[in-house]
C-alpha cells in the first residue's frame, strides 16, 4: 500500500471530501496561500479557491461562532485552530453554543462541524502552544472528541468526523504530522467510538492516546524481551469512548496502565480508570490501576524539562512492571 504522512492524510481526507461535498469548507487563520501554521492546508487554496479555503482574521471566538452559525444553517465547516491552546478563546462558542444548541432547542437544528487543531508538546513552543486540553472538551456533553495516532487512522477518522452531524473536536498531534503509514488512496471512514487494539498481549493492558500510543508500543517491544506481554489499546475517540474494547482487554490481562500526554490531574485517564473500576472488569483487576500523564506544571521551554513533563518510554516500562510487582 502507499505510504504517506499523517499531515498528508489529513489534507487528503479534506480535499477528497471537498471535491465530493460543496457544503464543506475550511476556515481558519493563515490557511490560504500560507498553508496553515503547520502546512496542513498547503496547496488547497489553489484547488478550492479563497471562498472555501477561507482565511480569517485572528478572531478565534468570532470564527468559531461563525462556523457554528454556518453549520446551523446548512454548511459543514471545518474550523482550523492554529494551536489547540487557542480553544480557550473559542471556548464559549464551542461549549455554550455548539455543544448545547441541539439539546437546548429540544432536538431541533444540528451543528455539523469539525474543529481541527494541533495539540501536544515536543516542539519547544512552551506553555501556551503545547498543551493537550482534550479533557476539557470531553467533559462537555454534546461534543465529540477524536485523537488519531496514525496516518491511517487520521484519514478515516476525519472522514467520519466530517460526516458526523455534531460538533467534533479533532486533535492532531504536532509530532505525528511527519510520521508515515500505509494509507489507502480512496476515501474510507473509521467509525467514531471504535477503539483499536494496536498490539495484542496477555499480561498488562496499556490504554494510550495520540503520541503515547507510539511510546506504549515501544515500551511493549522492550518488555517483551523480559517476557512481559503487553496489550496496547488506542481508544482513538474519547467521546464516544469504546468502553467495551477496553473492558474486554482489562478483563483478559487483569492489569491496566493508562497513558496520556495531558496533565495527569483531572486528565481523561482518570475517566478511563474510573470507567474500569465501575465495570465488570473490576473483578478481574489484579493490581492497582496506574495512570501516567503530564506533570502538574505548565509546559516548560527547556527541552530537557519539556521531556520530563510528559511520560516517556522508560516511565511506561516502569509503570507496567509495578503493576506486575516486578519493579
Amino acid at each position, binding site marked *: 500500500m502507499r505510504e504517506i504522512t499523517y499531515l498528508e492524510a489529513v489534507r487528503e481526507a479534506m480535499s477528497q471530501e471537498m471535491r465530493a461535498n460543496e*457544503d464543506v*469548507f475550511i476556515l481558519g487563520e493563515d490557511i490560504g496561500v500560507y498553508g496553515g501554521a503547520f502546512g496542513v492546508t498547503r496547496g488547497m487554496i489553489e484547488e478550492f479557491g479563497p*471562498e*472555501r479555503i477561507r482565511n*480569517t*482574521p485572528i*478572531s478565534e*471566538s*468570532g*470564527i*468559531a*461562532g*461563525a*462556523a*457554528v*452559525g*454556518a*453549520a*446551523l*444553517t*446548512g*454548511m459543514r*465547516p471545518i474550523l482550523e485552530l492554529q494551536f489547540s491552546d487557542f480553544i480557550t478563546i473559542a471556548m*464559549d*462558542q464551542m461549549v*455554550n*453554543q455548539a455543544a448545547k*444548541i*441541539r*439539546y*437546548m*432547542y*429540544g*432536538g*431541533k*437544528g*444540528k*451543528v*455539523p462541524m469539525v474543529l481541527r487543531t494541533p495539540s501536544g508538546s515536543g516542539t519547544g513552543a512552551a506553555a501556551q502552544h503545547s498543551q493537550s486540553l482534550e479533557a476539557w472538551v470531553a467533559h462537555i*456533553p*454534546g461534543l*465529540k472528541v477524536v485523537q488519531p495516532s496514525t496516518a491511517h487512522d487520521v484519514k478515516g477518522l476525519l472522514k467520519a468526523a466530517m460526516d458526523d*452531524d*455534531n460538533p467534533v473536536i479533532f486533535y492532531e498531534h504536532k509530532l505525528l504530522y511527519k510520521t508515515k503509514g500505509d494509507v489507502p488512496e480512496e476515501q474510507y471512514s473509521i467509525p467514531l467510538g471504535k477503539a483499536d487494539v494496536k498490539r495484542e498481549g496477555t499480561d498488562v493492558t496499556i490504554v494510550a492516546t495520540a503520541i503515547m500510543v507510539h511510546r506504549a508500543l515501544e515500551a511493549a517491544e522492550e518488555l517483551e524481551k523480559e517476557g512481559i506481554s503487553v496489550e496496547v489499546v488506542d481508544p482513538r475517540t474519547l467521546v464516544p469512548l469504546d468502553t467495551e474494547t477496553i473492558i474486554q482487554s482489562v478483563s483478559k490481562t487483569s492489569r491496566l496502565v493508562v497513558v496520556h500526554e495531558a496533565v495527569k490531574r483531572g486528565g481523561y485517564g482518570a475517566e478511563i480508570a474510573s470507567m474500569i473500576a465501575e465495570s465488570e472488569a473490576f473483578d478481574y483487576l489484579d493490581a492497582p490501576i496506574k495512570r501516567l500523564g503530564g506533570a502538574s506544571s505548565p509546559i516548560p521551554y527547556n527541552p530537557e524539562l519539556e521531556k520530563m513533563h510528559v511520560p516517556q518510554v522508560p516511565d511506561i516500562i516502569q509503570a507496567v512492571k509495578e503493576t506486575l510487582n516486578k519493579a
Partner: protein
Amino acid sequence: MNHLKVPEKITENKLVELYKQMWLIRYFEEKVDQFFAKGKIHGTTHLAVGQEASAAGVCALLDKEDKITSTHRGHGHCIAKGATPDKMMAELFGRTTGYCKGKGGSMHIADVEMGNLGANGIVGGGIPLAVGSALTASMKKLNYVTVCFFGDGATNEGSFHEAVNLAAVWNLPVIFVCENNQYGMSGSVKEMVKVEDIATRAKAYGIPGVVADGNDIIEMINVTDEAIARAKNGEGPTLIEAKTYRWKGHSKSDAKKYRTRDEENEWREKDPIKRLKELLISESIFTEEKAEALRKEALKEIEDAVAFAEEGPMPTKDDLLTDVFA
C-alpha cells in the same frame, strides 16, 4: 396613509397586525412575570416590556427564509418572528409541548424552521452565530438576511467586535440590531460605554451605523428596510442602534436601585404601543374601539396560551438523554 412613509410591504393591515402583536408580546411578558412571582414558573426570566417596537418593527419586514438570532431578553423577537405564544408558554412551563420540549426554557427558545436561530443565555454569544448564518447565505448564494439582536451590554463583549469585523470584511448580509435599553443588568450604558451612540462603533469596522428611536415602530421599520436593501445588494452589514428602555428589572428580584422612578416614568410616556395606537387612530387606520378589541384579543390569546401550557405533559426521565447528539 398619505403622511406615513413606510415601505410598500407594510400595508395598513400589517400595521394593525403589528399593533396586536405588540400587545401579544406585552401580555405574554406580563403573564410570565406574574407566574414567576407566584412561583408557578421556576428558573429565571428577562423581560422586554417597553421594548416591543424594535422586535415588531425589525421583524415586520422579514420573510420566513430570513433568520434572526436573539438574546436572553428574547420573547418579543420570538413572537415577532412568528413563534406562537402557546408553545412559548409551554416551554416556560417546562412542558414537552414547548418549543424546546421543556429543555431550553425562557433563555433558549428557538424555532429553527421559522428562521429563529435561537435566544441565547450568553451575552454576545449569538452575534458570531448570526455571522455564520450570513456566511451560509453568501456561500450558498441564498437571498436571505440574518438579523442579529443584542443589547447595549453585549457591545462590550469581544465576540461583538470579532463578529462585526468578520461580517464587515466578508461583506455578509447581516443586520446588527443593538437594542440599547440603557442598562446591562444594573450597569448604566453611560458608565459602561464612552461613546454617546453605540452606532458610532460601526465606523471602526467600516460599516454604516444608524441611530433610531426604538420606541417608534415606524422608524424601526424604515431603518431596517434600508439595512435589508444594503445586505441584499451585497453592500454588507449595518449596525442599527435602537434607543429604548426596559420597564422592568433585569430579571426577577431586581429592586432597580440603580435608577429612579422619575426616569422610569419619563420612558413610560414613550410607550411604543400607545404611540402606535395614537398614530393609527390619527391616520384613521383604526378606531379606539377597534384598538380595544385588538388588545382584548391579544389578552385572550395569551390566556389560551397559558391553558395550553398547563395542559402539556411534563418530560420524563426518558427525555433526559435524548437530543444530546444528532
